[in-house]
């Protein structure tokens, strides 16, 4: 069970980064980390 949850979390992390950098939305393109004015 632990393994299943851990690997689901890994999959979520991969999808999140792909969405952020490979297929970015307009919001992601406008603002990076540490940027407080977007």
């Amino acid at each position, binding site marked *: 069970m632990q393994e299943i949850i851990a690997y689901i979390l890994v999959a979520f*992390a991969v999808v999140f980064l792909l969405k952020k950098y490979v297929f970015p939305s307009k919001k992601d*393109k406008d603002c990076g*980390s540490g940027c407080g004015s977007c």
Partner: protein
Amino acid sequence: MSKNDIKVALIGNPNTGKTSLFNQLTGLNQKVGNYPGVTVDKKLGVSKLSSTQNAIITDLPGTYSINPTSIDESIVLKTLLKKNIKESPDVILVVADVENLKRNLLLFSQIKDLEIPTVLAINMVDQMNRKGITIDLSLLKKELNTEVVLISARKNEGIKDVKAAIIRCHVAAKASPLCGINNQIDPDYFTKLKEISPNYSLYELWLMVTQNNYPETVTKEEKEKLLAFKKDVSKLKKYQHKETIYRYQEINKILKKTYIVDKSKAKDLRGNLDRVFTHKIFGYVFFVFLLLAIFQSIFDWATLPMDLIDGTFAEISDFAKSNLPAGVLTDLLSEGIIPGIGGVLIFIPQIAILFLFIAILEETGYMSRVVFLMDKIMRRFGMNGKSVIPLISGTACAIPAIMATRTIASWKERLITILVTPFTTCSARLPVYAILISLIIPDIKIFGFLNLQGLVLLSLYALGFATAIIAAYILHKTLKVKTKSFFVVEMPNYKLPSVKNVFFEVVEKTKSFVLEAGKIILALSVILWFLASNGPASFDNVEKNTIENTANQNFSEKELQQRIASIKLENSYIGILGKTIEPVIRPLGYDWKIGIALITSLAAREVFVGTLSTIYSVASGDENTATIKQKMASEINLDTGKKRFNFPVGMSLMVFYAFAMQCMATLAIVKRETKTWKWPLIQLFGMGLLAYVASFITYQILS
């Protein structure tokens, strides 16, 4: 948006408090600052004018007139010329600064001539007594033939009056021109111009001709006729010149009757302060001392809370490993997620202190004095004073800084500023510097009061700024683009910082760092943990082989476990990747573990610390989890048997991060602003090459 909502465009000269008014009307928290150029793009918000009436407020960039000289100013013209029913404003709300009313009314007079219902909000009226200003409001309303409201947006005074005036103005709907340029310059010429189309006011047609800006609704036939007016360029210029003179004559007439300044009542603190802050010697001396104080404070004030956060996360990780059932998920939590979150939160104190100082400098109006002070220096290096705002705001983040270059009229100067801004030390570099400085620079005071760590941090900020200026000079000499340049900067009044504005600025920036950077670091920590805990077929035999190979050596159980964890990491997926790039980075003093952190921080620099934290957690195999700093401090270079993060390696890494373009979001924004991949790619490879060479030299000299 409902059909009945009133569309209001908020327009005014730079630094008149448009965004403060926008925030008061909409209840939003857009960034405000006591310096020009805070708004470079339009922003929308909804305002409840009455129980039955809402307004859609558009905050537009500041402009001195509707004859644009830069991209941000052209947004205003485009919005005003729109005839599309969905986008054209119903009411224009012009914000003027009470102290500079004459200059502000030039823009107002142009807008009034567009024959769109207009409200004039005279802001900062709380300064009137101190400046010895008196306004005859009822006469001013009559003379300007418009709704005029006195407000103090910062103090939330007069906002209800603005809302009521917008409703009245919208109901009245009709608007007449203020100056009526046609009769004053060349009646025949302007009568012919007006005959081109009944759908536009005379001034709209005049703007289309002079500004070469045609709304989509202009027909082909109308455009051809308008283009015919452009043929006589000298006549156009002469008439534009006459128009401005005529407008100022009219404004002077009106203000003579309605606006009185009694200099004997004014208290001239501003003049005295300006003499010091913009002095050709003392101005720079004060600026350097101010920066020194800021960076000293960052280290002095942040150490205690940082150690507290670091220690707390080490204990949480230790607690999780000791108390949760052994397994993959517990490993992920204690070696991936918890150190990853700790790697973000540890930097909250330093980031918050940095933004606190920046917010105070912006709020007081000192930032504009810095811009003025720097103009002379900037000009020698191919930029102008306006480049200072992006360079200074780049200390927070390069993205809004690059967007702030839209205020620079000359394309060449703007491009140079875009290209060099990423050299400015942004908040993402701060975590990298902070941890490395605390590892390699002793926490001692020199001359009894200067903290050496703070001094090194200041030197790194200076290095970033100096590199930006040198790079600008090289680009200035090599880029073959001819453009004219001029520099006008608004000198705002000095103000006591608004506690509310400073508080929101610090909270928003810190929250944004934690949430935006935190999500990336957390996701990367999880993936790194997976890549560090798994590997190809040989990975599974590591434990067995290590036990067999070390059977004859007298390792304690703890030493054996550490050895197994270390060899496992070396044979994991991430270990193989790090080993592959190791030959390239070894001349810089880095091993494969640092190499992994360099790769992951390509996305964003602040990931560096979190990555090392995760790698060393996996590698330790020890239940007594140490803090991030302790883990890095205890890492040993197996070749020399000495500390991995020694002085030469630490300096080499800081130099690398000072120059390398490790931020994908910045590359994306540069592409958007320059409309080509050419410049971001030049930045990526140029800065990367500079970073590699500079850290190679640093390491080779120091080691």
